[in-house]
């Protein structure tokens, strides 16, 4: 070889044996995966951790309700109606039928969390899939999917939820279905936007150039990048879902009595507002605390996930 190729420091000649001291001298940084790095950033975010712990406590309390609840949430008492805090061992008093408030609130968390998470989960899967398909497919499929979603978008979410629940009748399952329908278009749009952004990037083209099928490309290169925005949006929807579910129950379209549901409790205790204002406020406080904690945690996670580099 008469032509001496100049190799800058840090690069090894391509055809030479690899020798450790010759190779790129970049400092050996600790390499983290994406989710690892998100967790790493969250570690110093005390706000998010604090509110996350509250959410965790609520979730644990809901799961372990039979172990924690001091009384049977359905046990009524004629004499013990609307009693104040601490009355005969009822830490948070009793409701209008003499049932223990604390137990009902703990059990109510189960339904509220289910109503908060299930519709979001369903909407994420269904809407996310439709969005990725819509984003990746051609103009016709995209138009068909997105314009259908726009029809749902035309209604305010609470109105749509009320309308669907009203048409299908009350009950928890119908409530979940109606809320899923409410969230799916928004989820679909987020996924579609994220997909469309990724779709035209060079690495998708490079993947196609290496002979990958569309399905393989979606699985390996699109989903991972769509997951971030979708996850962030979904986490912010949880609190909305809890609120909407409570609203439905409040209107009598969601969970039916005597199930302990926060929205329903708020609705029935409303009539005792002048007798027992504090007890009346408890379900509202539970809804408020849960949804705001979910919101703040999702905000923190969003911040940790947004950072690049």
């Amino acid at each position, binding site marked *: 070889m008469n032509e001496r*190729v*100049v*190799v*800058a420091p*840090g*690069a*090894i*000649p*391509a*055809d030479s044996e*690899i020798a*450790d001291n010759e*190779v*790129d001298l*970049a400092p*050996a*940084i600790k*390499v983290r*995966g*994406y989710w690892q790095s998100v967790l790493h950033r969250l570690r110093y975010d005390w706000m998010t951790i604090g509110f996350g712990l509250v959410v965790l406590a609520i979730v644990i309390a809901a799961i372990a309700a039979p172990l924690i609840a001091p009384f049977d949430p359905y046990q009524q008492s004629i004499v013990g109606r609307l009693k104040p805090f601490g009355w005969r061992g009822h830490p948070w008093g009793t409701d209008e039928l003499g049932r223990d408030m604390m137990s009902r609130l703990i059990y109510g968390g189960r339904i509220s969390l289910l109503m908060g998470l299930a519709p979001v989960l369903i909407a994420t899967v269904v809407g996310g899939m439709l969005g990725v398909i819509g984003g990746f497919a051609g103009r016709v499929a995209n138009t068909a999917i997105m314009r259908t979603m726009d029809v749902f978008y035309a209604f305010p979410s609470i109105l749509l939820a009320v309308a669907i629940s009203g048409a299908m009748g009350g009950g928890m399952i119908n409530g979940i279905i109606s809320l899923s329908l409410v969230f799916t278009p928004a989820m679909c749009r987020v996924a579609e936007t994220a997909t469309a952004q990724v779709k035209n*990037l*060079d*690495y998708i*083209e*490079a*993947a*196609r*150039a*290496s*002979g*990958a*099928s569309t399905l*393989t490309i979606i699985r*390996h*290169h699109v989903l*991972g*990048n769509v997951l*971030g925005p979708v996850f962030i949006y979904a986490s912010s929807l949880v609190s909305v879902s809890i609120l909407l579910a409570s609203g439905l129950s409040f209107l009598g379209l969601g969970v039916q009595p005597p199930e302990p549901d926060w929205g329903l409790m708020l609705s029935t205790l409303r009539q005792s507002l002048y007798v027992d204002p504090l007890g009346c406020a408890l379900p509202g406080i539970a809804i408020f605390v849960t949804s705001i904690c979910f919101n703040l945690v999702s905000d923190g996670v969003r911040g940790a996930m947004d950072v*690049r*580099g």
Partner: protein
Amino acid sequence: MSAAVEMQPYVDPRDRGGAAQPMLIARELQRHFRVKGAGTGAVVRAVDGVSFTLFKGETLGVVGESGCGKSTLARLLLHLVVPDSGELVFDGDAVGERGGVNVADLRRQVQMVFQDSYSSLNPRMPVQDSIAFGPMVNGRSKTEARRIAHEILVKVGLRPDLFGPRYPHELSGGQKQRVNIARALAVGPRMVILDEAVSALDKSVEAQVLNLLRQLKRTLNLTYLFISHDLNVVRYISDRVLVMYLGQVVELGPAAEVFARARHPYTRALLGSRLSMDAGRRIEAPPLVGDPPSPIDPPSGCRFRTRCPHAESVCEARMPTLGHWEDRSSHVAACHMTRPDSGHSLAGSA
């Protein structure tokens, strides 16, 4: 296998046509893009009748201003953009035609390195997985693909244990572009299209990557189509040069020839616009004024005539052709001045 074959220094088993068969022949490739929103049927003539031959083992540099169709041409060659018309012959086989080579096979043998090293790597994927993706979709097992990725990383000068598990945002521009090259090579291509592959890098890193490309070409027996707007880079790396203007080839010839004796006024203007290291040699008058005309409605006749200092009526009336080229040493230009019989007053002087 006979003894005669074994004695040969290196024969790529995929080399069907032999050394004399060009790697790639493009004939009258054409791709027009419909203009969105214009109901009049207006089209952008991105690539308009481009023909050239890419010989085995050479580097063909493609130069031209922004928007002249260089990148569209690259995507046409890989069928990432399907040509409207024209013919593509890869190693003697027509691409995408009955009895020829299908697009999937073509893509196993022709790979591309993109300009934007950031958007051409999946930000959510460790680079070793990005590199291993190609072999994996071509039927290798996960561990095998990972092994190939590590081998290629060594070839492009990055330590696999150190750089393999990293994410793109943890790499510098030069390192990312090395990874991009590795990704292209992982499939084991015979030809690599480098679309402005070094343009986004700063000069010192650019030189490193260029040297790397030269080495890889030698060791892996590659053929390059090197697209760039940087004439100095093209001169450094190319054996032959193809000059494009508004979707057409205006000049084609050996790099040394084209750079020393450019025949097309556009090429001369491009060469005149190069910056010099010599402080005494300043560019006094701009070699080219104005923007190229719109590719939606290109000028009649010669497309360069609106900016050409030698434009005459014949340039408006007739479109000059590139003429015939025979082999690697042919030097042709699509200009009336190069044809004695064209009727141009300066004909034959160029």
